[in-house]
């Protein structure tokens, strides 16, 4: 088999995941795209290991380690996403702007609030209550 086939497939899968990471808004969809990118790397590792006929089989061993690390990563990532959802009532990555450099970058665009579901609206006062706290914290952090 030509090595170009798995290499090209891995490159295309990686770029698909890259598009997903950049374009998606929901944090869980971003995690799915990260999984696609990791899998593209795994395919590269396996293909090059089979091609090189390495005695240590480094590629396949690293693939197994990558799979295990990806499982750990998805567990931690989902725990973080759920914690953010509990505190903010949203899992949209472009609304988490508390650590923005400037105040106008921190404000969420007005168009985002229109398509919120009721569960989101129920936690809205709490969301605004934490926003000044974050701002004060940032103010005292910057000299």
């Amino acid at each position, binding site marked *: 088999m030509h090595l170009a086939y798995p*290499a090209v497939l891995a*490159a295309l899968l990686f770029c698909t995941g890259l598009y997903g990471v950049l374009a998606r808004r929901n944090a869980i969809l971003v995690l799915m795209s990260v999984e696609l990118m990791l899998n593209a790397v795994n395919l590269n590792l396996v293909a090059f290991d*089979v091609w090189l*006929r390495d005695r240590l089989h480094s590629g*396949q061993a690293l693939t197994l380690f990558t799979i295990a690390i990806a*499982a750990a990563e998805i567990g931690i990532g989902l725990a973080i996403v*759920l914690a953010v959802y509990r505190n903010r009532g949203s899992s949209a990555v472009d609304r988490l702007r508390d650590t923005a450099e400037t105040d106008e970058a921190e404000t969420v665009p007005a168009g985002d609030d229109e398509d919120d579901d009721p569960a989101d609206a129920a936690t809205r006062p709490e969301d605004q209550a934490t926003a000044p706290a974050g701002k004060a914290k940032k103010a005292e952090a910057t000299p």
Partner: protein
Amino acid sequence: MTPALAAASAAPGFLSPTGVEIAFVLVGIATLGAALVTVTTRQLVHAALWLIVALGGLAVEYLLLTAEFIAWVQVLIYVGSVVVLLLFGLMLTRAPIGRSPDADSENRLPALVVAVASAAALVWVVVDAFRTTWIDLDGPAQGSTKATGSFLFRNWVLPFEALSVLLLAALVGAIVLSRKGGRADARAGGAPAAAPDREDER
């Protein structure tokens, strides 16, 4: 005749594919299509289900590359647990069933430009580099369970054990992050809409 030309003529060409190559390309097209649907669909649960197709297709690709053990690990861990975890996450964050209008953020166009540019660059470089490289798939399978156990526990024992410690750390971290009560809960004041979810989580 230069050595490069000799190597090119010695290797089988792109126009005479073997059966394994045809199967690889067909499964690869299905995998890539499923991945594209995963990153573009507006239905969040469908994205997770298409991710199963993409990851299963990759498992078939591993089988075609004679890495059987990794193929089954892929099926067990990715299709079996990671996608299920993602579906749990989608349900616990109350992802809307059906089409959601805001699945994509407003920077879709820059993302598309970056992805297409990097895809073009990577594919060009990779094809240019490995045009005349041939994988020899004959002989004993290099990724059979016997071979995998042999190299994993003969040469890679220490990283393997370190990995188990990492998995333990990830387990403890996930429990701490999603624990009920504690300081983080008092600060949040208990979001009423999301409160019932926490019993289901652990």
